[in-house]
């Protein structure tokens, strides 16, 4: 059997590999069949029927996105019958969509608008027939659902159930009563991990992040408030996309300047607390290993798992509540910095924690939930007040009229602004593990991590589960118990991958010492709050930008950051000290999965 098939599309011959869809074959010919629900790698179900084509010999029109090309097919994509059907399907969809576009956050960034332009639909043929009542679900700290905008394309259902294996939302009822919703309750009470992948793939404004822009704007103009902003590692490699720059643009300096021009009183870097996280989490790992290896204590919870990703943390709390002791107790960098700002920094400035408003810019919708967790109040008040996503910051930059790409480069403020390259790679899947190894290996052996350019081979990537083993040799006297010990490590991203890994861990099929999981595919660079679209190609471009930022730093290891030394000397004592535990560590809860 030949590996290719030959067919005709709009009178043109084309030869494509077997298994290619007609939609893809048409692209080979430079023909763009319009699509709406189709999203490569996430949702390929032929639900919306916008991509229908005519196939000679078949009485009905077929969805080209799920039609496999076959030898001898004669396909028409532009016959009058196809064009009429396509437009009717689209206009019916429009008739159920609330078209208050001016007040919509997706205005000019809406796949429905884009398609209307493409199809030449400029008038409303069907009178508004809004079958189901509009329902706004504001129960979640992270996400809002607006059924009035939903066009039932089901991308969100696919990404939630198939990619993330969470299954929070599904299509309920049928026909004109259909809606995408959780089982019995609002998102805030459902089994939802707040990862926001649904919002990242939504073509319209039916699922989106809960707005924190307005309260931030109010805080900035309030003279009584000292408003501090922190930006996550992944923002610098993505925010440019919201301002028309290509994916992978590294814009750290412009980002800082933009935030200063907006009126924030101080611009800090979540990278700084990523370095702090490595000290706390790295020492915690060594303490757990010591108890297991040197003391033979079998009760110690290994493998230790990273706790930076709040979507992943809540996933574990819901689906593997028996494994929550394995999570590092170290808070995420966002929460560490929030606490440090409202304690250490507040003291230095003679301010009370309630005088300070901490805003964080995150690639993540789950960070909004994390900031609202009742545990996250170690400064006496809420440690992080508001969390805006990359997309929300993009809107703020536009509202402020900033010509972002041409802004001069600014510098983060001291004392919480400088960081090592190890902190940058927190944005990439595998980065937290690599950053931890750079420090732990050097602490244990006194020598640098033995890999070219400090990158552990095959550790950072956007796909699958990666395993690495690192053997500690010629260790220093303090760590003699680690001599010759091989640490088994695993890294993954995306909760479907995490589920596979956790099933193997909880059944005892796989034994590791340390596991890094990030909830979103590719890590934070592919977070649910990042600019749309986030395809694998875009993920790789942001990934590369983050690696470039790391490699361009004079300091590449967290323990070399002098400002981290300073906070331990001035305030915390040493890593995992009593005070560090009080302020920088947290605990987790078991949750139901149904």
């Amino acid at each position, binding site marked *: 059997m030949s590996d290719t098939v030959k067919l005709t599309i709009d009178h043109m011959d084309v030869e494509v590999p077997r298994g290619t869809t007609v939609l893809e074959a048409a692209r080979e010919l430079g023909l763009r069949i319009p699509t709406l629900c189709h999203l490569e790698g996430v949702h390929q179900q032929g639900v919306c029927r916008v991509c229908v084509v005519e196939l000679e010999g078949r009485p009905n029109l077929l969805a080209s996105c799920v039609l496999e090309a076959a030898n001898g097919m004669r396909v028409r994509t532009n016959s009058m019958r196809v064009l009429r059907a396509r437009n009717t399907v689209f206009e019916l969809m429009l008739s159920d969509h609330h078209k208050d576009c001016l007040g919509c956050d997706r205005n000019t960034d809406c796949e429905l608008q884009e398609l209307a332009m493409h199809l030449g639909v400029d008038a409303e043929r069907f009178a508004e027939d809004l079958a189901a009542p509009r329902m706004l679900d504001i129960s979640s700290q992270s996400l809002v659902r607006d059924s009035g905008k939903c066009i039932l394309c089901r991308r969100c259902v696919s990404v939630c159930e198939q990619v993330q294996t969470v299954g929070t939302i*599904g*299509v309920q009822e049928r026909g004109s009563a259909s809606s995408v919703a959780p*089982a019995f309750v609002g998102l805030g009470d459902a089994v939802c991990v707040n990862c926001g992948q649904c919002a990242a793939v939504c073509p319209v404004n039916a699922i989106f992040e809960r707005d924190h822009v307005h309260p931030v704007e109010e805080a900035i103009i309030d003279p009584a408030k000292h408003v501090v902003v922190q930006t996550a590692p992944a923002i610098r490699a993505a925010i440019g996309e919201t301002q028309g720059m290509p994916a992978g643009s590294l814009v750290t300096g412009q980002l800082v300047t933009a935030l200063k021009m907006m009126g924030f009183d101080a611009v800090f870097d979540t990278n700084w607390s990523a370095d702090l996280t490595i000290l706390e989490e790295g020492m915690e790992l060594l303490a757990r290993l010591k108890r297991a290896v040197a003391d033979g204590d079998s009760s110690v919870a290994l493998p230790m798992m990273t706790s930076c990703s709040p979507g992943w943390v809540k996933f574990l709390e819901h689906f593997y509540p028996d494994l929550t002791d394995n999570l590092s107790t170290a808070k995420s960098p966002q929460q560490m910095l929030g606490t440090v700002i409202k304690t250490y920094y507040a003291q230095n400035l003679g301010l009370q924690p309630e005088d300070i408003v901490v805003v964080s810019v995150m690639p993540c919708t789950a960070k909004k939930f994390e900031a609202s967790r009742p545990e996250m109040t170690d400064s006496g008040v809420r440690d992080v007040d508001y969390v805006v996503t990359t997309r929300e910051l993009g809107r703020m930059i536009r509202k402020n009229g900033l010509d972002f790409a041409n802004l001069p480069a600014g510098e983060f403020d001291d004392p919480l602004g400088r960081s090592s390259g190890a902190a940058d790679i927190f944005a990439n899947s595998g980065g937290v593990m690599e950053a931890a190894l750079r420090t732990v290996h050097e602490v244990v052996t006194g020598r640098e991590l033995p890999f070219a350019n400090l990158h552990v081979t095959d550790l950072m990537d956007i796909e699958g589960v990666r395993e690495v083993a690192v053997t500690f040799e010629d260790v220093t006297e303090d760590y003699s118990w680690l001599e010759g010990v091989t640490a088994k490590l695993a890294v993954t991203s995306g909760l479907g991958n995490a589920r596979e890994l956790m099933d193997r861990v909880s059944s005892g099929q796989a034994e590791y010492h340390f596991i890094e999981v990030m909830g979103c595919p590719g890590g934070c660079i592919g977070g649910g709050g990042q600019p749309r679209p986030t395809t694998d190609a875009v993920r790789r471009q942001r990934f590369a930008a983050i690696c470039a930022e790391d490699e361009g730093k004079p300091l590449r290891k967290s323990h070399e950051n002098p400002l981290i030394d300073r906070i331990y000397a001035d305030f915390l004592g040493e890593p995992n000290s009593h005070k560090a535990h009080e302020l920088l560590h947290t605990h987790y809860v078991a949750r139901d999965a*149904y």
Partner: protein
Amino acid sequence: MTPGNPLKIAAQGCHCEELSEEQKFERLDEILAIYREQPGSLINCLYVAQTIFGHLPDPVLAHVARRLGVPTARVTGVASFYSFFSRQPRGRHTIKVCLGTACYVRGGREIMEVLVRDLGIKAGETTEDGQYTLEVVRCVGACALAPVVLGDDETFRRVRPTKVSEILARFAPSATPSAAPAPVKEVV
């Protein structure tokens, strides 16, 4: 006890009305245990659950999800998609009015109007005393007998609006009115 064909067992008069809530969940669990290992059996499981509980209250749907390891939103999605599943308590008797083409033109619509008026409920609803559930069906394949009304498994042919009260009387409540059922709580 190892049940045989679960669907058969569930369908054979299980006298479920006489079972306590706990016993109903036990019975359901026996059958869910069989289906747990067979992907794609959600509809069968919901059918069994509806046979045991009479309808599919939320705690039963959550229980099916838990035992099968399927997301709750998918379970409620399936339960709300198929018209033969009911998430509301059903009456002791189901009155179905055929509104297929033949029955419709021969007066099915008037029959429906009388039933809606006399029972004080709309199609798809159940009377407050839990006696009747009223439903629409689209053709039962007995067009020669149009218009047709089904009372449980009994077929009434060439029904005139004036005959509706007679049909209802056949399914009238017994002398002792039963109390409204208590809401179901999941037994894990």
